[in-house]
């Protein structure tokens, strides 16, 4: 929805004035957030989310017109605007996971409402000035064409980054069976790295170099996630750091390029928002069928491998049959998911020799399930890495003077 309404919202912001557009946008966003949090049906939730997108698009595009007056320059305004967007996109899953686990999923939306209202307060002054004077604080300059190559690269990189965020959270929760709160803490590495990575941009003034380096780092990090050698949280940290730093470099460079020298800023900001969100949608549409087919197949392979482990173990035969029946019961209870088979082994046998054999069997069985779960995500991460690398094509093709 955001991909569709960002540009019309930017046009509206130009016509009515950025102050009024931002204030109204934030008010609409706050109201829709409340509606999302109070929804009891999927249809009303989706409808409220669409309205959220309308309000959000108006506020975010108008902000780009308001920022230069506050921070002193268009370049600094762009950097701040991009940085806020990148940090928000990376922090979102982590904060969302924490709130879901600690409170409820509804709290994610209910918390957005007061934040949006608080953000609208300082903008009201500008909005009142526009309403009183009838002066729209934006010069209605002739609209320049959007930077197609920079926006195309943004779309591709956004598709890749969406995969990193979405798939990694799923791997941690559905694959490795971590709780949402632990998964949320784990994925904070990415936004923290994005914040730190912003400093690297000063190493090279060339936007093309920053964009290329960022795309390479995003792809490298996704390649690492596709090749995890074990189901260990620590092994996801280096790839996350790489994706986070890359995200910061590439998004800032491409957005600065797409906005630089083009007017009006709100409209071209709208183009970048559309490109990024279209990239996210296309990326998820392309990867979701691959990932769901893979996890189903890997679940079957892991269960087969686990059954072989049970059959060939040194646990005494009658105990083995009892365990097999309990494990089968767990598999049936958790059909369609990577099963948690630990409870099937409780209580452990009293005999020390049997207990040791059963503990080892449980460990080997969980290893096979971890292998299946981890490998299920590999093709999707790999495809996302390829998308990130493909962004180097429009980055390379852009004219030297632009990048």
């Amino acid at each position, binding site marked *: 929805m955001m991909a569709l309404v960002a540009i019309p919202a930017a046009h509206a912001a130009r016509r009515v004035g950025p102050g009024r557009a931002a204030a109204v946008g934030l008010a609409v966003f706050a109201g829709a957030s409340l509606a999302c949090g109070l929804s009891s049906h999927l249809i009303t939730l989706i409808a409220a989310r669409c309205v959220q997108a309308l309000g959000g698009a108006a506020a975010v595009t108008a902000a780009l017109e308001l920022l230069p007056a506050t921070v002193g320059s268009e370049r600094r305004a762009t950097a701040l605007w991009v940085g806020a967007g990148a940090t928000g996109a990376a922090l979102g899953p982590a904060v969302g996971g924490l709130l879901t686990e600690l409170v409820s999923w509804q709290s994610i939306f209910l918390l957005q409402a007061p934040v949006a209202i608080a953000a609208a307060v300082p903008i009201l002054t500008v909005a009142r000035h526009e309403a009183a004077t009838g002066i729209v604080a934006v010069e209605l300059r002739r609209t320049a064409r959007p930077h197609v190559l920079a926006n195309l690269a943004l779309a591709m990189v956004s598709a890749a980054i969406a995969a990193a965020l979405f798939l990694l959270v799923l791997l941690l929760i559905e694959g490795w069976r971590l709780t949402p709160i632990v998964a949320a803490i784990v994925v904070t590495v990415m936004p923290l790295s994005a914040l730190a990575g912003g400093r*690297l941009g000063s*190493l*090279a*003034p*060339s936007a*093309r*170099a*920053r964009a*290329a*380096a*960022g795309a*390479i*780092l995003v*792809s*490298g*990090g996704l*390649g*690492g996630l*596709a*090749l*995890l*050698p*074990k189901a260990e949280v620590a*092994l996801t940290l*280096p*790839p996350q750091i*790489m994706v986070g730093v*890359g995200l910061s470099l590439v998004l800032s460079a491409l957005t600065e390029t797409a906005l630089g020298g083009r007017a009006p800023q709100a409209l071209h900001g709208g183009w970048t928002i559309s490109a990024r969100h279209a990239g996210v949608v296309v990326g998820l549409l392309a990867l979701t069928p691959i990932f769901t087919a893979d996890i189903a197949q*890997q679940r079957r*392979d*892991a*269960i*087969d*491998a*686990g*059954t*072989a*482990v*049970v*059959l*060939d173990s040194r646990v*005494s*035969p*009658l105990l*083995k*049959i*009892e365990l*097999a*029946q309990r*494990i*089968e*019961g767990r*598999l*049936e209870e958790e059909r369609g998911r990577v099963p948690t088979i630990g409870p099937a082994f409780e209580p452990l046998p009293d005999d020390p020799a049997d207990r040791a054999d059963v503990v080892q069997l449980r460990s080997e069985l969980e290893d*096979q399930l971890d*292998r*299946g779960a*981890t*490998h299920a995500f590999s093709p999707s991460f790999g495809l996302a890495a390829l998308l990130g690398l493909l962004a180097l094509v429009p980055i390379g093709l852009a004219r030297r003077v632009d990048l």
Partner: protein
Amino acid sequence: MSSGRRSRVLIGGAVAAAVALVGIYLAAGGSSYTPAKTQDPCRDRPWRNPEGIQQIAEQFSLSALDGAACELGVTRETLARALATPESRERFTQRYEIGDAELARAIRAGLLRAVDDAEDAGALNPLVAVPLREALRRIPVDEAIELIQNARSLLDNLQSFLGPAETLLEQFLP
């Protein structure tokens, strides 16, 4: 340092970092971190060195599973899970459209293979193997079905099948 050189250093550093990460994870076995492949049940599977009647019975059951799975065109593991509970057997027969009679015939074929495997492993004397094969060829379908319906009884029944002759058998065990 010139702007061009700094750009090259930044890009070169990114490439080096990405290649290093992917290379390290590949070297650590990232591309092979997958579930273990299960063996084709129609292939011979060597017995562990069996000691005592209970271990022989267990190996016998596993060979029977291999033989039956080979007949049905499924993995040993799929059949083992199918026989774990009556509900899982029902799901299995519906999914693969296998009737009780076909399943019983496959189990019988599996039991015959198990006799062959036991003899090959030196766990069963040919003097016992020959009459055992004959007995299994004549095992009634409903008894074979009853064996299928309770996996625990498969092992118990095998033990009881062998049990009355246990003393005699042990004289013929290597």
